[in-house]
């Protein structure tokens, strides 16, 4: 018994050693070692919210990621995948500890996550310190692909300003002269307003007033009164989830709907149109996002069908981001023939990968943020109907803000 145990642990030790040698061996062409190293599973760390407000988002991202892997037959470049899941609780205070647990404790080969920007910021600290491969499937903090960018960090979602920039561009092109902005006073809100403002003022528009409300306060009445007295030609807002639902209903109840057109980042109308009265309140609201309803491409249709089959759920933008994170990972793994220890080659492959996403084809910018199309969508019934492309292959905030570029 004890002898058997000894032997098996000795064997594991050998495998670990040879895995560590993997990189060097590849250069020396020492093939047998590689083969043995690859018999070990690749550990994927999923650090996502599995409790709290963002639970559904975490689940959608994981579902999407797993679907992309499953479409490749569960083994990628001959290597089996092992998932290590960790609930980040959307709690920024625990973010670095949680990330550390996965990276140095579980020794994951790649860390995937997360939803909440504050938690993401904590994760990035560990990711930058340890150099572990990392894919961010949602949080849009600009810094991740500007000031804090790093070679081992990739994002398959968006940057906050990137989503709002196309909306400003569209309004400027429509010769809208002035607008009022309104959002929560926190970094995502500020970045969103800044992107809108940049495009809108560049195109000749003028921001009449920037209105703020403390996060996550939802008492909008006084701000709506102010908007009514300012009478701008357009109102741009950034809200999400419950706050967005309430804002839309309040906007209607305050009699502003139909008087002053409302625009927003796509999150304003995503995932809430099923709630009572929201679809009606949101009818006609135009938003920009990298995904939407009615993208009639073979790829999107196939994705929606297999996602619905696998999970008995309709996919949303978060599922797409998770799916693309999976595709990016697969692309890298295939390029290095499963030798994920060869980080340099893996990173190079991920940088070059063209992702055939349900949202449309896209590539990484030099800052490792998607260069992607943004759709102009309009709320029709309970759908965010895609009515056009607001910006093609948008690289924003400009990759030059990242020192890798």
């Amino acid at each position, binding site marked *: 018994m004890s002898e058997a145990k000894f032997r098996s642990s000795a064997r594991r030790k050998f495998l670990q050693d040879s895995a560590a040698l993997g990189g060097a061996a590849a250069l020396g062409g020492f093939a047998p070692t590689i083969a043995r190293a690859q018999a070990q599973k690749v550990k994927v760390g999923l650090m996502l919210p599995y409790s709290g407000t963002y639970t559904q988002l975490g689940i959608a991202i994981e579902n999407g990621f797993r679907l992309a892997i499953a479409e490749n037959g569960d083994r990628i470049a001959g290597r089996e995948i092992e998932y290590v899941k960790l609930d980040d609780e959307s709690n920024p205070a625990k973010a670095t500890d949680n990330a550390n647990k996965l990276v140095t404790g579980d020794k994951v080969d790649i860390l995937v996550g997360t939803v909440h920007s504050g938690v993401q910021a904590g994760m990035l600290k560990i990711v930058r310190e340890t150099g572990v491969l990392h894919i961010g499937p949602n949080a849009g903090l600009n810094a991740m692909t500007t000031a804090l960018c790093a070679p081992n960090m990739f994002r398959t979602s968006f940057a906050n300003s990137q989503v709002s920039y196309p909306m400003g561009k569209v309004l400027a092109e429509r010769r809208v002269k002035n607008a009022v902005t309104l959002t929560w006073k926190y970094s995502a809100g500020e970045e969103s307003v800044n992107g809108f403002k940049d495009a809108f003022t560049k195109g000749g528009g003028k921001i009449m007033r920037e*209105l703020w409300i403390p996060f996550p306060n939802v008492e909008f*009445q006084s701000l709506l009164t102010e908007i009514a007295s300012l009478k701008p030609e357009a109102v741009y807002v950034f809200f999400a989830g419950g706050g967005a639902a309430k804002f839309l209903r309040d906007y209607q109840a305050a009699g502003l709907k139909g008087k002053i057109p409302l625009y927003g980042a796509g999150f304003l109308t995503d995932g809430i149109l099923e709630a009572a009265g929201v679809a009606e309140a949101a009818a006609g609201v135009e938003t920009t996002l990298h995904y939407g309803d009615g993208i009639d491409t073979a790829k999107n249709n196939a994705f929606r069908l297999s996602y619905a089959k696998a999970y008995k759920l309709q996919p949303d933008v978060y599922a797409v981001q998770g799916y693309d994170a999976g595709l990016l990972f697969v692309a890298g793994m295939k390029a290095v023939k499963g030798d994920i220890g060869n980080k340099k080659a893996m990173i190079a492959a991920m940088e070059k990968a063209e992702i055939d996403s349900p949202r449309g084809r896209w590539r990484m910018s030099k800052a490792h943020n998607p260069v992607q199309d943004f759709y102009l969508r309009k709320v029709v019934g309970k759908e965010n109907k895609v009515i056009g492309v607001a910006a093609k292959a948008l690289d924003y905030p400009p990759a030059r803000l990242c020192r890798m570029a």
Partner: protein
Amino acid sequence: MDLGTFLIQVLNGVQYGLLLFLVASGLTLVFGIMGIINLAHGSFYMIGAYLAWSLSQHFGSLGLAILAGVVLTVLIGMALEWLLINKLYHRDHLYQVLLTYGLILVFEELRSVIWGNDVHGVAVPEWLSASIRLTDTLAYPVYRLWISAVCLVLAVLMYLLIQRTRLGMMIRAGASNREMVQSLGINIQLVYRLVFALGVALAAFAGMIAAPVSSVFPGMGNQVLIICFVVVVIGGIGSVKGAMAGAILIGLVDTFGKIVQVEIAGFRVLPELAGMTVYLLMAAVLLWRPEGIFGRRL
């Protein structure tokens, strides 16, 4: 800002303040009379909102949902006092904070199990769903005015209950000398149970009538709890009159804090500091009167 807009903003502030009063009054009553710091008070606001949502779907009427919800929350309040809270009367505030914080977690988890984590909207009853057009761009929802009216009526009822009825006298007497009240043959335990249930029901009721305008979402109680503590501290801990003054003051300051632009040396101070205005107000009031506006001298 023209006069018309100013007056509408005052109305907004008062209206928000009245709703805050409803939640804060329960908090201040339970603290002032029973000496219990109830951190879970905000959870009852959330529970009220979720009850309004689920019961109004069941009954098809918000009015019935509120009626059933109030009965239910009074019972919940009494059960909680009986099971847990009455163990805390002779304990340090630290134990109260620990237990009631635990209750927040329990209620959040229960909410998640029973109702899920989704955001829900509650429809405004048909007869209150109109808006009154005030200017060419602005209308005022009738439902908001109705909320204000209901809050005012409840405030008057509460005043009468506490100042004019024998139960009110017993409640106030209990706040000053619990043992003496017992020795006069009054079941103080029962009085406390009623007061706690009243506090719970007030918070839940506020959540119910606010549900159509505030949406129903996880964690909504914690937001309210913090602002209500500010109201209670400003008004004077334990004073219902103070809760009213504090709530209206907070309502107005919050409203104008969000919209007034003040520049100092070229820097916008408001609304950059909008999130802080109510806390700055609290700090100012406490420097002026550490016991709060209507608080008893400490």
